């Protein structure tokens, strides 16, 4: 049986409820989110940033943002976990796109970081249960489209970087991604 992401999430701890309590000013609820999701949040951030101190910074900022924005969460729209991880990813992308933030990373480390992000992106589907429909649907895409989507989502690469990695013009890359996403939605619906 294929299950959707939304159905697979928010199971053990009621994250929606925790967000509601955060919005009411209950710090214990935020701590609960850190306790239950923190390990994975740190893992996602580390996969994208490849440096422990940057990943920790991203998770800390993410938790503060969750605290401040909890009142904006609408459970009717989607899962609490999806909302929480989107905040983390956003923070990671900000760190990656801010040249100043990476200023203190030595050039040789930056190269290693890019390599590790590439590797992590390629392995993005590893470990995903066959029961998750997204796995089947991503696997059905053209390899170039699948790779581009994983580079963006898992590695946090920009469109320009993805085009460079795949050695194609930006326009080609954009249309691969767009077409891939459309097929993905069709497959998942």
């Amino acid at each position: 049986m294929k299950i959707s992401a939304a159905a697979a999430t928010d199971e053990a701890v009621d994250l929606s409820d925790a967000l509601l309590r955060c919005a009411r000013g209950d710090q214990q609820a935020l701590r609960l989110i850190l306790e239950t999701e923190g390990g994975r949040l740190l893992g996602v951030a580390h996969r994208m940033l490849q440096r422990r101190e940057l990943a920790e910074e991203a998770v800390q900022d993410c938790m503060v943002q969750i605290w401040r924005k909890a009142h904006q969460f609408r459970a009717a729209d989607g899962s609490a976990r999806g909302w929480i991880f989107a905040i983390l990813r956003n923070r990671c992308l900000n760190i990656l796109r801010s040249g100043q933030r990476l200023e203190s990373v030595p050039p040789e480390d930056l190269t290693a970081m890019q390599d590790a992000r590439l590797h992590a992106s390629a392995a993005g589907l590893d470990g995903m249960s066959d029961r998750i429909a997204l796995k089947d649907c991503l696997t059905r895409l053209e390899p170039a489209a699948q790779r581009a989507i994983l580079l963006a989502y898992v590695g946090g690469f920009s469109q320009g970087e993805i085009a460079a990695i795949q050695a194609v013009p930006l326009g080609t890359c954009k249309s691969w991604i767009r077409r891939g996403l459309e097929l993905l939605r069709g497959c998942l619906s």
Partner: protein
Amino acid sequence: MSMDLDTRADIFVLGLLDEPTQAELDAALADDPAWAAAVARARDRLLPLDMTAVELPGAVSLWDRIAPRLGPAEPAAAPAAVRAVPAAPVVPANDAGPPRRWFTAGMAAAAGILAGVMLGGSWFSAEPVVIAVLMDASGNPTAVVEDFGAADARIRFVSAVEVPEGRQMQVWTLPSAEMGPVSLGLLAGAGGADLDPPRLPVPTDGQLYEITLEPAGGSPTGRPTGAILAKGLAAQQGA
């Protein structure tokens, strides 16, 4: 080029739009329910990819650095000459949140320290070109750098710092993106020191200063390699 709502949401969730567009669409989440719903669907579609990341230990220990940053941030007035940022920006560039929230308790404390520096007036005879309050990751003021330009700068610590065995603090500034970070000197301890910077362009408003933990004897590469202990942006002094 028109794009349907769901495709736009997917691309937004992948983070592929240019930064101003990304920021604009992020702000729109608060007041466009149809857009917010499309984005929430897109997030849930791709969320299983986040679940393939390996869980890492140690997240809960971050709480002590998170908790001090919570709570309603009371707007606090700061002198116009003072500008400081916490080591980790609380509000990302694409967050249209209330700018007053930048003025956290740490900021207010930093402002107080600077006011003390300026009112005290007896520390140094010359007037620094810029002052930077360096904050740690939690936004607590750690040190104050006064850069007089002309290869003369001083640092003073305003809170206790822990330097692990075998490491040494090194002070850096970023005169420009082209030059990259430049060492202002190594610190023997946390007692404050006259730094020994090379001759650099006159420091400017907003210039970055930071302290990193380097191997004893200083960074082996001549660039920062260790964890950032504290950092802050310079505020121009005088007229």
